[in-house]
């Protein structure tokens, strides 16, 4: 118990310190950080399904694109205020996520991966080809979320979104529902035999994860002023996947750390063009092979150095 409080305390301090960033860094670095936070939210949403419930899906980026277009199109055609677009996007992705989750309620492993992969590609292709509505590969220009463009304000906006998703997923992870997801991940048959409605738990988990992605995607599009089909591409999906694995899949904070580190690294590697993908792939392979718990295992190393090995078994 004490360890959990300590972790939360450190987290809040870290986020507090992080929130002072706009005072010190350039506009360009701030932009990089904002995108890093967007990916952090996406990685947390993916980790919610893949890490906590053991559902390896490839539809996360597609839900972000869906959220972006849902919000953009809703605002452009209804003339409603922009924040209502965010709510609309969250609702749409939540419903579609629940439907996809219900469809996949009995699928696991490769089959689940294939269905969600196909879903992601369908979303991307529909967005690309329905250019009457979406303007295809040109991207859809959407109005900015804030009336006055200010990177600092967007930074805090994304940071609040991040805090909500981070502590939301932590809270759900420790709730009864979170334990049910862990149980399903370990043994679906046993969970079912103990009265856990696995189909319902999975559907809800899908919906929650899709909602977080949809909201993040919509906010991201309103920040850039543009929604593109690329947001839902598999390249984005694999980026989110690497971030989660590098940070530590299944941990509550690891994916977010992985996302920000890799996004900053991505910007540094920009000069090398497409070669950055090579570096990321190598890093991901290295992490998966030698430290399956990602960066979070480094924290574990520090912890074991401080405490005697006996107490490790009880944490």
């Amino acid at each position: 118990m004490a360890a959990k409080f300590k972790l939360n305390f450190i987290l809040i301090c870290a986020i507090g310190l992080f929130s002072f960033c706009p005072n010190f860094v350039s506009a360009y670095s701030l932009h990089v950080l904002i995108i890093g936070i967007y990916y952090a939210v996406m990685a947390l949403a993916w980790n919610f399904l893949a890490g906590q419930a053991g559902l390896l899906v490839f539809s996360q980026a597609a839900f972000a694109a869906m959220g972006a277009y849902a919000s953009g199109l809703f605002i452009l055609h209804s003339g409603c205020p922009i924040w209502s677009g965010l709510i609309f996007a969250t609702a749409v992705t939540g419903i579609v996520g629940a439907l996809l989750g219900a469809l996949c309620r009995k699928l696991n492993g490769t089959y689940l991966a294939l269905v969600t992969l196909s879903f992601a590609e369908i979303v991307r292709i529909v967005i690309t080809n329905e250019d009457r509505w979406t303007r295809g590969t040109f991207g859809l220009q959407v109005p900015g979320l804030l009336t006055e463009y200010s990177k600092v304000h967007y930074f805090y906006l994304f940071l609040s979104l991040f805090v909500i998703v981070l502590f939301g997923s932590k809270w759900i992870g420790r709730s009864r529902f979170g334990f049910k997801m862990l149980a399903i991940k370990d043994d679906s048959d046993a969970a079912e035999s103990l009265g856990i409605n696995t189909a319902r738990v999975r559907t809800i988990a899908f919906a929650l994860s899709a909602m977080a992605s949809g909201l993040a995607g919509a906010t991201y599009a309103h920040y850039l002023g543009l929604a593109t089909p690329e947001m839902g591409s598999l390249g984005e999906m694999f980026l989110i996947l690497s971030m989660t694995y590098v940070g530590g899949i299944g941990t509550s904070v690891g994916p977010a750390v992985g996302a920000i580190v890799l996004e900053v690294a991505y910007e540094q590697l920009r000069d090398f063009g497409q070669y950055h993908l090579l570096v990321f792939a190598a890093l991901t392979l290295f992490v998966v092979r030698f430290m399956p718990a990602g960066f979070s295992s480094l924290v574990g190393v520090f912890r074991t150095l401080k405490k005697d090995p006996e107490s490790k078994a009880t944490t």
Partner: protein
Amino acid sequence: MSAIVAAIEIHKQFGGNRVLRGVNLTVQKREILALVGPNGSGKSTLFNVIAGALCPESGTLLLNGEEIFIKHPHQACALGIARTFQVPKPFLHLTCLDNVRVANKKPQTDLMHLLELVQLTDKAQSLAKHLNISERKRLDLARALATDPQILLLDEPMAGMTGAESEQFSVLLHKIRDHFGIAIVWIEHVIAAVLKTADRLSVLVDGKMIVSGQPHLVMKDARVIEAYLGV
């Protein structure tokens, strides 16, 4: 005594393989019923049908005299039918206490008491993946009890246990029956333990219940001897 669960004329086939051919099984309240039979006679299939993991082609299931229709295993659990598996299936990455907690149906249940019952108190905070086979089986049992069942289905709990461990397990079964007042149906190949522990013995051969009754008498039945020894 009144029947808590009754399975009437259960038929189940996998493709052309007729596994259950009109099985009748009645379980009385507070009884320990052992289910024996040669390999492939349909014992586990019958369990899966009662626990909702398999849907029978035909037949009726009664719970406390009322017909029940179970489509999913979690519904069977909600009705008070708990089961364990032949190969124990603990949630390996949860602690023993959390394993029991996730299955717990009534908030006022004392989870530590359940772990104490199966002698896992000192392992409460260790992850289930560190347990040996006997401990895993006992954890599965505690977890099934946490769902507040009326009837407990145990699939070969003594397989892989040492002699001393199965002795203890026999005592444990009686303790559970007396403490919770529930019925236990128990698939077992360790006949010595069955004779000592069970109130009643049913023998399933080729998808049919051939005989049921007092354990010592059943084992002397000519049909049972034929099924096991082929003479």
